[in-house]
Structures are given as structure tokens and as C-alpha cells.
């Protein structure tokens, strides 16, 4: 058992995978510094600092993966995947189908996402819903060090493309690099249990597609992931004081999505609240609505999502992102509605 930060847990999973398999390589901008430990240990034959050319080096990662390497390709912020979307949408996601299942593409796109440190709307998006809409991709969004470690291990071992999203508010190194930058004068609402925690010594990989119930309750199911999960847990504590007993589910993966855990919980509580830091429209929050409806449930439903381009001003940003207050209010409204109509 070791206690470590979220970013250290990911770095460790990568480190171990690189030590175990010389086909695992890292490529991306500034990786000699960002992953200086890996760079020192494995050198320039395994860690490739790239030019600011995402569309070609993400595309190159696809080719590298197809021909025998297992690249971890880093796109600093997920927002920048915009310039490399073709490699994601039209190549890595489709190789396996196009080749009739005969050729796979084992790579990990490691990228930082999320807001809450005042960097503005072009640098704080999450975009996981966009990726999850594309068949052929695995989408991972861990909420704590142990999950991050286990899911990164699985991602590197997986024979298909994985988008691994590292939330900046959980990732000490990214938050330090983009938000705090040595200042003592700024504060961020960092979920402590997500940013630092124990990683069991015997832990290896964690299977994809397994959501986990972080808190049990009977009145209402909150489904979330990443930082939103911690906001939801905080809200659940407050809601308990209001007599609303929440069950809180951490999805961990958007694709494959663990519908069963969600359905089981909602069939018990009759109420579903989705807390999603990604854009509201045509995303994860809707997908969960569809999944429960398809399963024959008809819960009371609400969602707390991002509904606009993230504004720069920190007070506006705090309102735009799903915050505890918005979650509590939405949950109270949901709880006030009559209990589930029928199942």
C-alpha cells in the first residue's frame, strides 16, 4: 500500500509498464520534462519529445501501434485534440473494423482535461462525451489515484485505442503547472480524496466498464465521474442532513459503460441525477437517461452539467461547472417529486 498523488499514480503505472515491455513508449510535447523520470530512465529511444504537431504525432501513434509498439501519446490538454481529431475519429477508432477485426491499434491517448482553475474556455473542456460517441474507442475517466493506476495499467495492456482523461483538478502536477504555478495566492477547490490516496501494493489492472458505488443510499442515485464524483459525494453529505439519502456511483469508464450498476441503483431509488462536467447537450447525461429508459425504468431525472462555453472569470466558471450547490438544489427538487412512478 502506498499513498500517492493522482498524477504520481499514473506516472507509476506508466513507469512499470515501460519497465515490463520495451514496446511501451511515450510521445508528446515536452515529455522530456513532463515525464522527466521516464525520460531519464528510458532515454530518447522510448520517450519522444514532439513538435507542436498533434495531428501528425497522434496519427503516428496509430501507425506505431499498428506495427508493434504500444504508444502512450500525450496531448497536453484535451482541448487540443481538436487539431488531431481526424486521427481519433477516422483512424484509431476504425482500424479494427476496417481490417475486418484482423488488425488492432493498442495505444493510449493520455490527456489532461477539466476546469476549475480559471484558464478559460479553450483549455478547460472535458469532451469525454464527444469521444464516447465514436464506436471503437475506450474512454476512461478515473476519480482517484488507485483507479487511475489500475485503469492506466489496463489501458496500456489493452489491444485497442484508449482515451485516458486526467482531470487537472485531481492532478497535482498539471494543476501546479497550469494553475498555481508556485503561487500561494490562489486557491482551488481540489477534492482531497481524489488528488491523493492509497494505491494497494498488490493492485494490478482494473477492468474497464466497471462502475462502482461510492456511497449507498435509497432516495436518489447520483451518477458521475472525475471531479464531478467528488462534488456529488460532498453534495450527498449535505443532502443527508436534509434527510435525502443518496447513492453515488462513479462510472470510471464512459465506454464501455456499466449500465447494470446504474440500472440496479436507479431501480432501487427511482431517481437519477447525472452530474457531468462535460457539455450537457448530446452527451453522457443524455446517454444515461436513454439507458434507464431502455431498461424499462422511468425515474425522476435531472442533470447538472456544463451548459455553456466555460467563462474565464472564476466566479462565473464556478457557476458554470457542476458545483455542490447546484447538485444539492437539483437533488432536493428531484427528491421533492413523488417517488418513482412505476417500475
Amino acid at each position, binding site marked *: 500500500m502506498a499513498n500517492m498523488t493522482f498524477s504520481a499514480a499514473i506516472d507509476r503505472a506508466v513507469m512499470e509498464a515501460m519497465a515490463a515491455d520495451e*514496446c511501451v*513508449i511515450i510521445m508528446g510535447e515536452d515529455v522530456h520534462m513532463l515525464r522527466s523520470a521516464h525520460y531519464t530512465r528510458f532515454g530518447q*529511444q522510448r520517450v*519522444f519529445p*514532439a*513538435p507542436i*504537431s498533434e*495531428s*501528425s*504525432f*497522434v*496519427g*503516428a*501513434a*496509430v*501507425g*506505431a*501501434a*499498428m*506495427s*508493434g*509498439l504500444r*504508444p502512450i501519446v500525450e496531448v497536453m490538454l484535451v482541448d487540443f485534440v481538436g487539431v488531431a481529431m*481526424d*486521427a481519433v475519429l*477516422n*483512424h484509431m477508432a*476504425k*482500424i479494427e*473494423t*476496417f*481490417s*475486418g*477485426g*484482423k*488488425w488492432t491499434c493498442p495505444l493510449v491517448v493520455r490527456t489532461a482535461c477539466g476546469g476549475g482553475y480559471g484558464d478559460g474556455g479553450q483549455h478547460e473542456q472535458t469532451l469525454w462525451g464527444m469521444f464516447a460517441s465514436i464506436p471503437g474507442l475506450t474512454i476512461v475517466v478515473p476519480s482517484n489515484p488507485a483507479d487511475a493506476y489500475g485503469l492506466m495499467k489496463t489501458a496500456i495492456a489493452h489491444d485497442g485505442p484508449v482515451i485516458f482523461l486526467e482531470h487537472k483538478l485531481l492532478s497535482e502536477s498539471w494543476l501546479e503547472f497550469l494553475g498555481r504555478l508556485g503561487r500561494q495566492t490562489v486557491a482551488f477547490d481540489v477534492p482531497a480524496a481524489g488528488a491523493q490516496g492509497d494505491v494497494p501494493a498488490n493492485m494490478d489492472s482494473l477492468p474497464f466498464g466497471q462502475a462502482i458505488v461510492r456511497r449507498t443510499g435509497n432516495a436518489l442515485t447520483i451518477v458521475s465521474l472525475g471531479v464531478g464524483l467528488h462534488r456529488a459525494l460532498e453534495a450527498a453529505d449535505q443532502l443527508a442532513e436534509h434527510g435525502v439519502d443518496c447513492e453515488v456511483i462513479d462510472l470510471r469508464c464512459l465506454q464501455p459503460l456499466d449500465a447494470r450498476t446504474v440500472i440496479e441503483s436507479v431501480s432501487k431509488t427511482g431517481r437519477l441525477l447525472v452530474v457531468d462536467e462535460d457539455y450537457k447537450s448530446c452527451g453522457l447525461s443524455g446517454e444515461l437517461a436513454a439507458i434507464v429508459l431502455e431498461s424499462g425504468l422511468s425515474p425522476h431525472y435531472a442533470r447538472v452539467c456544463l451548459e455553456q462555453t466555460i467563462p474565464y472569470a472564476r466566479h462565473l466558471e464556478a457557476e458554470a461547472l457542476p458545483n455542490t450547490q447546484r447538485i444539492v438544489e437539483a437533488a432536493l427538487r428531484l427528491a421533492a417529486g413523488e417517488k418513482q412512478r412505476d417500475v
Partner: protein
Amino acid sequence: MVELELYKAMVRARAFELVLAEFWEAGAISGEMHLGTGEEAVAAGVTRHLRSGDAVSLDHRPTPVLTLLGVDLQLMLAEMLGREDGLCRGRGGHMHLFSKTHLAASSGIVGSSGPLAAGFALTAKLLRPGNIAVAFFGEGAMNQGMLMESMNLAVAWKLPLLFVCKDNQWAITTRSVDVTAGSLLERAAGFGLPCQEVDGLDVMAVAETAGDVIGQMRKNPQPFFLLARTSRLDSHQMGDPMRRMAQHPVGEGGKTFGNVTKHLLAPRGSGPVTRIKSLMHLLALLGDSRKDVREHKTDPLFLTRQQLEQAGQDTESIEQDVARQMEQLVDSVQVDSPAGGAHGKHDL
């Protein structure tokens, strides 16, 4: 004897293209069909120097190179017929032919062969020293950012990547020179790429240059840019309006221009000079499009055959031999239903 071998390779590639054309015309192959007719010399000249462990990335005209790499023609044809026993189980189709055995992949996204080959080349460098990767693409793709980026990447990372630009001067209905600034060689050289131009209609010239370059790359991993003039004998794609226009100038030409002339005199718009200029441009394009098809001098097969015949070589037996193979290939395939018809069973 190398020449005859190369010629045979070209004849074989051409023959397969023509088989595809036939099935496509018959409606048994669906979607767009971009033939590689006119590119055979480049395909033959380069692939002759490739060996196991080398990788190639291809664009929307993948078949000549795949044919010459030795990908099973029957598997490819079955693939394009959308059959479960096709190369990619009918999932990929003409623009997405993949052979893992040959480390060969194609894509319909213009320019994407650059980044893909950069990845192939990286693997070669790290895991299979001495192997190389080749990216094939058109001159139109030279304006796609990811391809340019990959040229920089290949030089910066010293990748054994041969960029082969098949310059047929056209991108669909656009004269590439009209939208491409500077010269392609200077553009590539601007990335620090060693470059060479070669007559892509002359298979021996291609083979010689490619041999030299690839030999060097195997010893000392670094990229190279080969610019090969080619031609587009069957227009952009089977059955496209310019191809039809070239085949039936009057009928198709008239049809295409019905729409245009109506608006030549419409009120509100630009002045007459501008309008006439536009019209002349369109007419010139349609006229130009007929050249490649009509003139033997742009056909690499014709040129090579001429050279060989002048040298007293027997090309006819090669042609007959390949023709027979293709007949067998066609005969061995039964098409139950055209692509556009009932979506019934597709067995062999």
C-alpha cells in the same frame, strides 16, 4: 531481365485495376472507385525494393501497390464485392484495404498516409532496424497540414520514411498548381528533407532512384522525399463527370454546361469579364481532363512497352500471361447480386 519483371508487375497491376473497373461498372462494387491506372510505374519501381518488415501507407488509390506487394488478388476483389471472405471481411472496402501481413494500410482521408507512415517508420527504427516505411500520396495531399507536419516529424525524429508524392497534377476537378504555392520540391526541402524528382512514367527510372534511396535509408535511418510525375488515366474516379465528359464530350459537356450558361447572363453578379473568365476556366478544365485519357504518352505501360519492344524484348507473352490470370480470377468469383441490388447472400 529486370525490365521485363518490372513490366510484368505493371501489367499485372493494370490488369487488376481493369478488373475492378469492370466489376464496378457492373454495379458489383459500390461507392467511389479511384483507379490507380497511370501510377503503375511508381508502384512497381518502389515496391520492387521493399521486403518483409517494411510497411506502406496508402491513399484512396491503394490497389496497384497492394497488388505488387503480393496481396492476394482474390481476397481484394472479394473485399470490394463486400464479402465475408474478403481481405477485410467486407468491412473496409476499396478505400480501406488493410493487410497486416504486408504491413499495408490505406485510408480515404487525404494526407493521412503521412502520419501513419511516420508511426510505421518509428516502429521500424526501434524494433526492426533496416526496415523502412513508405507513404504514398498525391500532390493534392501536399496541402494537408498533417502530411506537412509528418515531414517535419520524420526529419526531426530521423525516421526511415520514404515519402512518395504521386504528382498527377489533379485533385478531383482542381488543377493542383492553381491552389498550391511554391514548388513541391522546395516545400519538401524546406523541411530539411533530401529530395529527388523522378519521371514517374518511367519505371526503370523510378526503380533506380528508389533502389538507391531505400538502400541508404536501410543503413542510415532518415526520411526522403521522392516526387514522381504520374498521370490520371481514368480521371479522379470511375464514372466521374470529367471522365464521362472525356469519353462523351458532347453529351456530358452539354449537360454540365446547361446549368452554367443559364447563370452566365443572370442579373446581379459580377461583370462580364469575370464571368467569361470563370467560364473559360471551366472549359479549360474539361478540355484538359481529356488529355490524360487520350494520349498514350501519359501511359506508363505504353511507354515501357515501347522501350522494351525497341530493345527487342517480348512483352506480348507477359500481357497474355497476365490476361489469363485475370480471366481466371474473374471466373473464380461469382457475384450473386450487384452492390446496388438486393442485399442477399454473397458466397463464393
